[in-house]
């Protein structure tokens, strides 16, 4: 294929004549070696002076100890299926109309449920069932599971009302009395199980010895306010441009500035489909950047702004004098 034969008009934003001018010796391997050493010095100095952050992870144990009321308030929503995870939709469950969409475009729905989570079973009943020698607890669970859906709902609704006024007395949960049947005992036991650390282990292991999938404990943590409040204190929340940030005063991910900016502007900042909308915008802009050489006006900006005159000023000076 020879483009020289094609009758194509020269476009200075697309084409350039091949260089027929002078060459100078240039040792690219030596340059690379010097650069390798220079960057080594830079990273050693930065690592020595600034180190790197390592805020310890939080556990369900820590959460339930620091704020047992918030833990219990979250746990009841896991049992009655009203928590963030329980109503999330795909990929965790098939909650109708939960998946984000843009018009007919609803990819989460199309891909479906592939990380199935039943919060009542997986976060509450299942872990409690693993506890040995707890006859009263097992009886409470039997009563709850044996009751009708309407009865279960009546109990959980009553408990949610009561736990809104719960108090934390030296780390122990105190919930005002109410007609919530076995649910009070169930949630109280789960809170106590969390405070021993047993819930962290049970949710992670899922009955196996080895596991590296933290989906369940992370989703449970994220449903509560403790993780979120710690993040807010570190300026990491979405509305705080958190995606760019790191804990403390460390630099974060400045390259995510455009991605996170869209979440702050209308209509995305109030949209329930914000994530999909922002992804769509960023995909479009990314494709645009890849194909920039084909886009008129945008590809002319370098020629119009003439920054190149500074970059190649020696070349233009030499041209002018010859």
């Amino acid at each position: 294929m020879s483009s020289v034969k094609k009758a194509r008009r020269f476009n200075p934003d697309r084409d350039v004549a091949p260089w027929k001018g002078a060459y100078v010796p240039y040792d690219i391997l030596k340059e690379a070696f010097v650069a390798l050493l220079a960057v080594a010095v830079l990273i050693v100095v930065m690592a020595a002076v600034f180190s790197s952050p390592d805020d310890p992870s939080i556990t369900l144990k820590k959460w339930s100890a620091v704020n047992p009321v918030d833990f219990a308030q979250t746990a009841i929503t896991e049992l009655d299926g009203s928590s963030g995870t329980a109503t999330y939709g795909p990929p965790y469950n098939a909650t109708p109309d939960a998946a984000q969409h843009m018009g007919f475009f609803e990819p989460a729905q199309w891909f479906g449920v592939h990380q199935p989570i039943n919060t009542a079973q997986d976060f509450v009943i299942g872990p409690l069932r693993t506890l040995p020698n707890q006859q009263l607890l097992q009886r409470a669970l039997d009563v709850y599971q044996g009751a009708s859906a309407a009865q279960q709902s009546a109990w959980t609704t009553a408990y949610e009302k009561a736990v809104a006024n719960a108090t934390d007395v030296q780390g122990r949960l105190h919930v005002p009395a109410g007609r919530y049947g076995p649910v009070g005992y169930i949630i109280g036991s789960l809170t106590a199980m969390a405070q021993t650390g047993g819930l962290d282990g049970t949710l992670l292991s899922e009955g196996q010895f080895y596991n590296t999938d933290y989906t369940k404990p992370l989703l449970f943590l994220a449903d509560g306010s403790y993780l979120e409040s710690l993040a807010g204190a570190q300026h990491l929340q979405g509305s705080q441009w958190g995606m760019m940030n790191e804990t403390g005063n460390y630099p974060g991910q400045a390259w995510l500035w455009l991605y996170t900016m869209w979440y702050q502007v209308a209509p995305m900042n109030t949209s329930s489909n914000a994530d999909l909308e922002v992804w769509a915008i960023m995909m479009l802009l990314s494709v645009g950047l890849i194909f920039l050489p084909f886009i008129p006006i945008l590809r002319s900006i370098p020629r119009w702004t003439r920054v190149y005159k500074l970059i190649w000023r020696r070349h233009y000076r030499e041209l002018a004098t010859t």
Partner: protein
Amino acid sequence: MVLGALLAALVNLGGTGKYIHWGFIQISVANFIVIILMIVVFILAILLPFPKRKGDRQ
């Protein structure tokens, strides 16, 4: 290793982060410094004279 202990951070970047609020923009001081540095380095890279090579001109 002792070396690791010796090389613990000389400047503590932990603690409460400092942030700049400008209209709807919120940016950490750290990120702001990084971005300013990038712009400064870019400008310097363009403006600073590059050493001339006394080489064969082919």
